[in-house]
C-alpha cells in the first residue's frame, strides 16, 4: 500500500490489518512514554488547504508518536487565488524532503491527483478531499465500533451484520462516503437518513437504502449504530432545509429519540458537534456516545496508517 486515497481502495484484509495494528498503537498510547521509533528520520507534511485543527493535530500527534519529523503547511484559499498550483506546492514540499503528504483539500479528487498525476512520488494520505472521502475518519469510526462491541477481543474481527444508520448531510459529506464504503467492506449494513435535499440526486447512493425521516429509520431499522453528521448552517441559507429548528425536529438526535434506540446502540459524531441542532446534549453526553473515544482512537488509527504506508522502507 503506497497511498490512502479512498476507502474503496482497501481490501478486507488491509482494513483488518490497519485496525489490528491500531490496537497495538492504542496500547502505546496508554503508556506513560507514548513513543515508538518506527519513522525516525522520516518527514511527514500536513498539507492543509482547508482549516481543520482537530484532524491536523490528530495526524501530527500520530506522526510524532512514531518519531517522524512533522511539518505543518497551511495553504489556505484556492490554488487559483493563491497563485500557486497544487502541483507546484506539492513538488516544492517534496523537494524539501517530504516523504509523505497528508492532504486536506477543498476540491474533491485533490489527493487522487497528487497520487496519480506523476507530479511527485511521496506517499499521499487523504485527510479529506472536498465532498469525496475522508478514509482515516471511516477507519477510526470502524475501530471505535469494533472496540465498543468486542472490547479487548477486537483483533481480527469484522463488523458482520452490524446495522449502521448515517444521519444528515450525506450529499456534502466525505465522512458518509468513506464510511459507507468501508463499513460495507467490513460486512455492516449501512442505511441513510436525511432530508431528500441532502441526499445525492440518485438517492440509491452506492446501493444504500435510505429514509427521509429519522423516526422511520429508528423504528424500522433498529440501528446498532447511529452516526450523526455535522450540519453546516450555510446549507440553510441555500434552502436545503428551511430552519435549524425544523431540521432539528426532523433529523436531530433528541433525548426522546435517544431513548427509543436499543440500550446497546451507540451514538457517533465526527465532530465538531452542533449541540441542539443535529445532536442533543443528552445524546452527546450519554454513555452511548463515543464522541471522545473517536478522537482518541483517531490517533491510534492514524499511527497505524502511517506505519502501514511508511515503515520498512529504506531511504532513497
Amino acid at each position: 500500500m503506497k497511498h490512502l486515497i479512498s476507502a474503496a481502495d482497501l481490501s478486507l484484509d488491509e482494513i483488518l490489518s490497519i485496525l489490528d495494528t491500531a490496537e497495538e498503537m492504542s496500547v502505546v498510547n496508554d503508556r506513560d512514554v507514548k513513543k515508538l521509533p518506527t519513522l525516525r528520520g522520516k518527514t511527514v507534511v500536513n498539507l492543509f488547504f482547508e482549516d481543520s485543527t482537530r484532524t491536523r493535530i490528530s495526524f501530527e500527534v500520530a506522526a510524532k508518536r512514531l518519531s517522524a519529523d512533522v511539518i505543518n503547511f497551511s495553504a489556505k484559499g484556492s490554488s487559483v487565488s493563491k497563485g500557486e498550483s497544487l502541483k507546484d506546492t506539492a513538488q516544492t514540499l517534496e523537494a524539501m524532503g517530504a516523504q509523505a503528504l497528508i492532504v486536506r483539500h477543498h476540491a474533491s479528487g485533490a489527493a487522487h491527483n497528487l497520487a496519480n498525476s506523476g507530479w511527485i512520488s511521496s506517499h499521499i494520505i487523504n485527510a479529506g478531499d472536498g465532498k469525496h472521502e475522508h478514509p482515516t475518519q471511516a477507519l477510526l469510526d470502524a475501530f471505535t465500533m469494533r472496540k465498543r462491541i468486542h472490547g479487548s477481543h477486537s483483533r481480527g474481527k469484522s463488523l458482520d451484520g452490524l446495522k449502521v444508520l448515517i444521519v444528515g448531510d450525506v450529499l456534502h459529506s466525505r465522512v458518509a462516503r468513506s464510511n459507507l464504503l468501508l463499513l460495507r467492506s467490513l460486512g455492516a449494513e449501512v442505511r441513510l437518513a436525511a432530508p431528500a435535499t441532502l441526499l445525492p440526486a440518485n438517492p440509491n447512493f452506492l446501493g444504500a437504502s435510505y429514509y427521509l425521516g429519522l423516526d422511520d429509520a429508528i423504528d424500522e431499522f433498529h440501528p446498532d449504530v447511529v452516526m450523526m453528521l455535522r450540519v453546516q448552517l450555510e446549507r440553510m441559507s441555500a434552502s436545503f432545509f428551511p430552519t435549524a429548528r425544523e431540521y432539528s425536529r426532523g433529523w436531530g438526535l433528541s433525548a426522546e429519540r435517544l431513548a427509543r434506540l436499543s440500550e446497546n446502540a451507540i451514538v457517533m459524531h465526527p465532530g465538531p458537534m452542533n449541540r441542539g441542532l443535529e445532536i442533543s446534549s443528552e445524546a452527546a453526553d450519554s454513555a452511548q456516545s463515543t464522541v471522545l473515544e473517536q478522537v482518541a482512537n483517531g490517533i491510534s488509527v492514524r499511527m497505524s496508517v502511517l506505519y502501514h504506508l511508511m515503515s520498512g522502507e529504506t531511504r532513497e
Partner: protein
Amino acid sequence: MNYQLVLKNTNLGDGTTVDIAIEQETIVAIDTGLSGEVEIECRGLIALPGFVDLHTHLREPGFEASETVLTGSRAAAKGGYTAIHPMANTNPVADTAGVVEQVKALGDAAGYVDVFPIGAVTVDLGGVQLAELGAMADSKAKVRVFSDDGKCVSDPLMMRRALEYVKKFDGVIAQHAQDPRLTEGAQMNEGQVSAQLGLTGWPGVAEESIIARDVMLAETLDSRIHICHLSTARSVEIVRWAKQRGIRVTAEVTPHHLLLTDELARTYDPVYKVNPPLRTEADVLALREALIDGTIDIIATDHAPHPAEAKECEWDAAAFGMVGLETAVSVAQLVLIDSGRSNWQRLAEVMSLNPAKIAADLGQGEAIKVGSTANLALVDPAVQREIVAVTESKSRNNPFAGMTLPGRVVHTIYRGRPTVLDGSIVEVAR
C-alpha cells in the same frame, strides 16, 4: 483539355469513382479520365464537401496562449474543415462590429478556412443588454449566428427580444442551454458517478428546461433557434417533439458527447471536464440515434483549447472544454459509417451541408457537383489511427489522445487550393 487541378479517382461515397476538375475556386467538371496541370491522386479516398464547424473557440483576441485564429484555422484545415464559426467569448467579447471584423480579417489573413465570426447576443455576454446585432450583421463579417456560448441567455425576456430582433436579417440565436441556478458550482454530470466522486452535479434538467422554454418561444415568435451541444436523451426528446410541431429548431451534438461518458471523471483528470458535461451511456446512445434519424442536424466540435496549466490541477479549479477539430470526422465515421447505421451522404449533411445552411454561409456546404465552390475534404476511411495530443492546435487538452479512431483527412481543398496534402498542412505563402 488540362484543368488547373484534378482530384483523380475520388470515391463519392456511393461507390462511384470519378475525377473532380477545379478551376480557380469552382468545380468545373466531374467525370472519368480528366487530366490537369496539377493532379492529386485520391484512390480510396471519400470526397466530401469541406466541413463547416458551427461551434469553434479560437481564443483570439485575448487568450492567444491557448489558440489564435491562425493556429485554429490550421487545426481546422487538418480536420477537413473549410469554414469555422468562432464563438464570441474572447477578450474583448465579440459583441461589436469592430471585433467581429477583426476576427474575420485575421481569418482571411490566415487563409486556411473561411472564418465566420459568431456575435454575442448580449453586451459582454452579460445577459443584461442586447449587443448591436444589427451592426454585426451589416458589418464586413456579415454575422448571422449569435450566441452567448459559455453562458446561457437565461433571462426569458432577453431571449425573446433576441429571437425577434434577428428576424430582420434572418439571423439565428445559438443557445447554450444551461439554467444558471440549477448548475451553480456544477462540475460534472449529476448521477451515480458524481455522487460517488463528490463532485457537484450538473443535472440534465438544467439543459432540458431551457430548451423546452426556447423552442416554445421560437414557436410563439415564429423565429429560428439553434441549440448548441445537446447532451442528454431528454433534450433529444424535446427537440424531436418541437420538430414534429414544425418549430424552426436545429440542434448540434459534439464529437465528445457522441463518444465519451461521465465514467471518465473517475480518473479526476480534468481533460474530461467539459460544459455541458459528459453524460451517461444511455445519453450517448440517444444522441447517436438522433444524429442518424435527423433530430440532431449537425456535429459541431465546441473545440475549446486551454493551456496546460488550466488542466494540470484539481478538477474544481480546471477549465471546462476540450479540443476537437482534428478528430471530429473520425467520430462521425465511427457513429454513422462504421456502425453500419447510416451513410456518407448523412455524414456530409451533418458535417457540412446543414451547418452551412443554418449559418447561411456563402460558398460552403455545397454538394459536390459542377458549379459548386471547390471546398472539399478527402477522407481515407480505411485507416485506424492512434490519436495524439500534439496537433496543429496550440493546446493539448485532447480527451481522445491514446484512443484509436477510424478515418483520416488526407487532403483538404479550400476554395480550389490545397490546404492539406497527404495529411500535412500546406504552408500558405504570405
